[in-house]
């Protein structure tokens, strides 16, 4: 046996799992850590909204004598209840509404990104695997057409086509929130399709795919079992960056009155209501939802950049 001459072979690095390696790379970048903390903060806010929010987001409170809703931060109602961030025009607690609004916003964002990923990744994987055939051509031209519209315009058009509020499809009723998720998912799935197709093409050229074929694996098996795991990093990065965009689009739709409908608390809708009161000096009304939206977008973008650097060290090195 050739066992004796092992000293010529050395190991490359210590035994680290892929996850540990990723964490090591990720931690090095302070900005991405900040992004991660922001996103974590939002996640906690969304998950524990009923525990964190001091009041029911729809309950209306009466202003004490001599005051009117919207009340500024730290004011109290007739019964002496404290409103940390003030009230809105109907006397509802802005803090509670903002917390619940964040919850719905993240629900829509996570839901629509998941659906978009599912559609886009499938399309992209098929197109990439069948690259150069009419299937690829058909899928990618459809993607081109969808990408030629500005995404918000496309989303508005889709809401227009589906109708505002909940919709009926045959015997099924689709709730408004699910409908919005679908609209945004359709709008953003082409971006996932593009990324996925490119990654699949890149991976297919690698020898391990040929090696898998040589070991007798079928085409579908190679695509699912061999190539798919290798496409996860770029798709995660894309999803994280798209979260930021989706937060903005969801808020924009609500702001325009095409998204979430009152009385469901929504940051975009709050921003819209606040417009009328800006000149009356009710700054808290707009700053709270606006700030939350901005911070969420910042957090997801920082996280996405950090993930890209950590998952694709080649690109990160180039940047430094």
């Amino acid at each position: 046996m050739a066992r004796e001459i092992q000293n010529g072979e050395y190991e490359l690095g210590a035994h680290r799992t892929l996850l540990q390696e990723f964490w090591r790379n990720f931690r090095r970048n302070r900005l991405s850590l900040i992004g991660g903390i922001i996103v974590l903060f939002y996640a906690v806010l969304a998950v524990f909204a009923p525990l964190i929010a001091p009041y029911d987001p729809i309950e209306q409170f009466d202003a004490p004598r001599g005051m009117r809703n919207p009340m500024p931060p730290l004011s109290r109602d007739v019964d002496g209840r404290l409103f940390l961030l003030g009230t809105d025009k109907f006397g509802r607690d802005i803090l509670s509404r903002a917390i619940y609004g964040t919850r719905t916003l993240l629900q829509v964002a996570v839901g629509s990104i998941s659906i978009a990923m599912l559609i886009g990744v499938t399309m992209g994987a098929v197109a990439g695997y069948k690259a150069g055939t009419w299937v690829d051509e058909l899928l990618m031209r459809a993607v081109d057409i969808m990408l030629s519209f500005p995404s918000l315009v496309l989303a508005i058009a889709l809401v227009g086509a589906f109708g505002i509020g909940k919709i009926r499809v045959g015997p099924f009723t689709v709730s408004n929130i699910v409908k919005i998720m679908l609209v945004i998912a359709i709008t953003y799935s082409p971006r996932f399709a593009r990324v996925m197709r490119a990654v699949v093409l890149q991976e297919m050229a690698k020898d391990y795919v040929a090696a898998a074929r040589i070991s007798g694996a079928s085409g579908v098996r190679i695509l699912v079992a061999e190539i798919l795991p290798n496409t996860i990093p770029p798709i995660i990065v894309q999803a994280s960056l798209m979260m930021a965009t989706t937060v903005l689009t969801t808020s924009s739709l609500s702001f325009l009155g095409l998204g979430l409908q009152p009385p469901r608390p929504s940051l975009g809708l709050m921003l819209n209501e606040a417009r009328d009161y800006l000149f009356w000096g009710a700054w808290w009304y707009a700053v709270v939802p606006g700030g939350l939206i901005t911070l969420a977008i910042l957090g997801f973008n920082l996280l996405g950049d950090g993930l890209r650097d950590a998952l694709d060290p080649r690109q990160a090195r180039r940047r430094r």
Partner: protein
Amino acid sequence: MSGLLDVEGLVTRFYTEEGVVKAVDGNSFRLEEDEALGVVGESGSGKTVTALSIMRLIEAPGRIEAGRILFRGEDLLKKSEREMRRIRGKDLSMVFQDSLSSLNPTLTVGAQIARVLKHHTRLSRRARWRRAVELLAAVGIPEPAKRASHYPHQLSGGMRQRALIAMAISCNPKLLILDEPTTALDVTIEAQIFELIGELKEEFGMGVFLITHDLSVVASFCSRVIIMYAGKIVEEAGVHELYAHPLHPYTRGLLRSIPPLEGGEARLQSIPGEVPDLINLPPGCNFSPRCALADERCWQVEPELSGITPGHRAACWRAERPAMAGGGHD
């Protein structure tokens, strides 16, 4: 009577936008049971395409145009893709040159070997893993149980190549194709790998089809050699015969470009000119533009690969053995 592998008149072409690439142009050869056959040639001479044709892994725009590939008496070109999948990795296996890209970076080495076993055996999950560890041990990887759960990037180049070989022999193939298995490795490890392959060949009694551009590797490992040039076999002989009496001018050129072991003061000679464009092959003999001996006939008529002496074939008009040309026997 047939060998383990009989390739007859294989023609593989690639239909590119620039034109038709005649990658493999009408080659025939035979590989006997547990024989090691070496295939030597420059890049682009059709070695790898020949191997991929045998595996039936030529993809568009490439096509196998003609010929028969008899593997254990059955024509692989007549098999359905489904039947081929059952043969690949089981009876017919292949190892690539670049071990890092040939292994899936997201799967542990053990899982990749186990996956091949899953395609071809009915072993249980646990049994597959156990067998994967056994195979890693068989190819001389220390601490195989630990290594099995490592990812490719955690292993050295030599170990990865061993793991790849373990994967290739996991189902006891009858024929193992090695496509420049040691190009990415340094010389000491190269020697170890060939030692290992030699042992496995004896142990499992498999035929080996070794693709390389290194004649010295062939000399130590193979019993017979095929020399390829521009998609064609130009010479075929037993190793000793080839080294002692190279017939084709191209083979002689190749041999002159290897440094001799003793008294190596003489300058090494390279073959002048370049490999011809496989789309626009010259008329006559493919090698004629670079050949010092070429005459009118070489430029116009293509020589056939024919037996010059028993067991020694060459495709050259000028390939008469000097002794025979003189009319005597040696």
